[in-house]
C-alpha cells in the first residue's frame, strides 16, 4: 500500500469523518478567526499589520498541502494555474479601476491594498479546496440511495434514476462527438484542409467554418441526446405502472 495514501482525504471513510476534516481544514475559509489567531501569534515577532498580511499566504499554503496528495500533482497544478489566473485578473482589474476612478470607489489606498491582497490569497485557497471537496464526495452513492427509495417516494426515485441516466447519456454523446471531432480535426479549432488559400481568404473561410461548426455541434448534441428518450420514457412508465400495481396488491 502506498504510504502517501494516509494523506489522501478522498480515501477517508466514513463519509461524515471526511466531511468533518474538510470543514476543520477549511475553517479559515468560513471564519476570520483562524487568520486573526495566527496574526496574533505572529505579531509577537513582527509588526501587527505585517503579521495580519502574512497570515493569509500561510493559510493558503497549508490548504494547498492538504489538497495536493488527494488531487495528484498534475491536477493540482491544473487547478492552481486556473486559480492564479482568476486571482491575478480580479486583483489587477480592481486595482486599475481604483487608481483610474478614485472618486467613484472612495476607499483608502492602504485599506484597498490589504483587501485585494487578502482576496488574492483567498481565491488561491478557495479554488483548490472547493474542487477537492467536490471530487472527494462522489454523488453515485447518494443517487443510488435516492433511486431505490421505498414507497411513497419510489416514484421520486424513478424520476431521479431517469434524470441520472439522461445525464450519463449526454456525457456519452458529448465525449463521442469530441472523439469524432478530434478524428476529423486533430487541431480541434482549425480546419484540416486549407487548400491553397492565401491569408485573408483563409481567415474568411475559417470564420465561416467555425460558425457552422458551432451550429453543427449544437444540433448534433440535441439530436443524439433526444434520440433514446422515447425508449427510456417507455421503460420508466412501465416500471411506474408496475410499482403502482404492486403497491395496490400489497394493500
Amino acid at each position, binding site marked *: 500500500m502506498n504510504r502517501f495514501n494516509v494523506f489522501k482525504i478522498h480515501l477517508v471513510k466514513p463519509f461524515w469523518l471526511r466531511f468533518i476534516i474538510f470543514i476543520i481544514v477549511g475553517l479559515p475559509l468560513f471564519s476570520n478567526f483562524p487568520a486573526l489567531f495566527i496574526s496574533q501569534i505572529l505579531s509577537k515577532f513582527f509588526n501587527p499589520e505585517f503579521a495580519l498580511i502574512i497570515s493569509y499566504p500561510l493559510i493558503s499554503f497549508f490548504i494547498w498541502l492538504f489538497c495536493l496528495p488527494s488531487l495528484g500533482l498534475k491536477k493540482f497544478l491544473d487547478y492552481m494555474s486556473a486559480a492564479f489566473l482568476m486571482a491575478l485578473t480580479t486583483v489587477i482589474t480592481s486595482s486599475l479601476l481604483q487608481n483610474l476612478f478614485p472618486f467613484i470607489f472612495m476607499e483608502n489606498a492602504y485599506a484597498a491594498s490589504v483587501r485585494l491582497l487578502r482576496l488574492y490569497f483567498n481565491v488561491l485557497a478557495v479554488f483548490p479546496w472547493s474542487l477537492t471537496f467536490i471530487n472527494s464526495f*462522489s454523488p453515485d452513492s447518494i443517487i443510488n440511495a435516492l433511486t431505490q427509495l421505498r414507497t411513497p417516494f419510489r416514484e421520486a426515485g424513478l424520476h431521479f434514476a431517469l434524470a441520472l441516466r439522461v445525464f*450519463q447519456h449526454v456525457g456519452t454523446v458529448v465525449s463521442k462527438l469530441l472523439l469524432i471531432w478530434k*478524428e476529423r480535426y486533430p487541431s480541434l479549432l482549425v480546419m484540416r*484542409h486549407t487548400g491553397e*488559400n492565401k491569408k485573408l481568404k483563409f481567415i474568411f473561410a475559417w470564420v465561416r*467554418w467555425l460558425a457552422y461548426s458551432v451550429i453543427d455541434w449544437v*444540433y*448534433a448534441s440535441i439530436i443524439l441526446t433526444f434520440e433514446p428518450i422515447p*425508449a427510456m420514457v417507455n421503460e420508466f412508465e412501465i416500471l411506474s405502472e408496475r410499482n403502482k400495481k404492486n403497491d395496490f396488491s400489497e394493500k
Partner: protein
Amino acid sequence: MNSATYNIYTFDTFEKLVDRFVASTGLYFPKLSEGKDSFFKGFYNWLSAEKKNSNFALIAPEPSQALSLPNPAQVLYSALKPVINSPSEDCIFEYLYKYGLDPSISTQPITTLSGGEMLLLNYAKAEAQADYAERFIASNPIFWLNSSRYHYWLNLKELYSSKQKSIDVIVLNGDTYFDNTDSENDFNIKPLEFKLSIQEPKVCFPEIRFPIYHAARAISYKCHKEIIVKSPFLITGDNGVGKSIFSGMLSSIVDINSGNLSVEAINGAASCRLVFQEAVSQCFALTPEKLISGVFCADYEKKLLAQNFFQRLISEFNNHEDLQVSDNNIYTLLSLKIALIAERLADKPALLLLDEPGWGLSCKDAQLLVYKVALLAHELGIALGIVSHQPTWHKFAASKLTLKRLSQNEVDIEYESI
C-alpha cells in the same frame, strides 16, 4: 393455451429493420438519417401522441437503447422485482455471472460498458423478465457477440420456449447466425503493403470522481515489433479486449502515454483515418453533401475529389433498393457510411480503418461496400484495415492482427499472413 412461435424476420436495410421493430413493439425510434426537420417533427408527434406501453422483453437495434436505468444492478433489480419481492445483491450477481459478466460491473454506469457487455446485460434482463413478459422481441441479438458466446443466446431461447413465450428475431439479411447465406462472390483484391511499428504502447485513463465515478484504467499492448502488413488486414479479438482503443491509438484520437505505435505507407504517408461504426454520429447528424462541403470548405480540389469518390461508390449500389436518395433529403445508413469513407479517402492517409463496417448493413451490402472501398483505396495507395470480431471478414483479409488478453491490463498482438 398459447402456442409459442419462433420467428426470424430478415430485411435488406437497417431502416426497414427499425420499422419492423417499431411496428412490433409500439415503441418510437427516431430515424436519424432522415434529417433534422424530420427528426424534430417525429419527436414532437411522439410527445403529443397517446401512451402506448409494451410489456415485452426487448433487445433493441442498439444494445444500449433498452437499458434505461443508470447501472446494471438497477436494470436487473427492476427486471426481477415483479418476480422476487426484494432481489438481493447475490441474486443480481448470479444473473450477471450466468451471462459471463463480472459482478464488479454491477454499479458501473451503463455507458461505460462495451457493446458485447451491454448485449449480455440485455440477455440477463430478458431472462429476469421471462416469467411475466408477453413475448421476446430481439433485434440483432448476436451481432456484438464473439462466437464463443453464442451459447448464451441458445440458453435464452430455450428458456422462453419452455415458458411457451413467442420469440421474434429481427435481423438483416446475411446475419452470420440467423441467416447464414454465405456470399458466393469471389473478392479478389491485390494486397498492398505498409509498415506497422508497435513498440509496447500503453494507454492510461485517469480516475474521474465527479460527476460520475470512473476508475482509473490502463491497457498495455505487450508487443514490440515492426511488421510489413498486407492490406486489407483484419484487427480482431474477443469482446472488450481493446480493439477500439488500438484503432483509436492508430488514428491518434487516443493519446499514448508510453511506447509508440506508427504507420508508414510505401509512399511515405503516415496518417491513419478511422470510420466508426455509428455513421450517423460520425456524420454529426449532417447529410452527405453538407458533411463533404463542410469539411472541405477551404479546399475546392479535395471537395471535388471527395464528391467524385462518393458518386463512384454510390454508383455501385445504384441498382440496389438500399439507396433511397430522394429530393426530401432522406438518406440511408449506407449513403452516410459512403460519405464518411469518401471524405477520408480524399484526405489520402496511409491507412483507412473501418470499425465494424457491417453494422447496420446486410451481409451482401457490407461485403460489396468493403470490396469496392478496398479496390478504390489500393488504387490510391491507401491501405485498408477492418476492425471486427465477425467471421465474415476473414475471407477479405490478406493478413490478420489478433489481440489476445494476457491479464486484466495487458494485451498481446499476433500478426498472421492469410
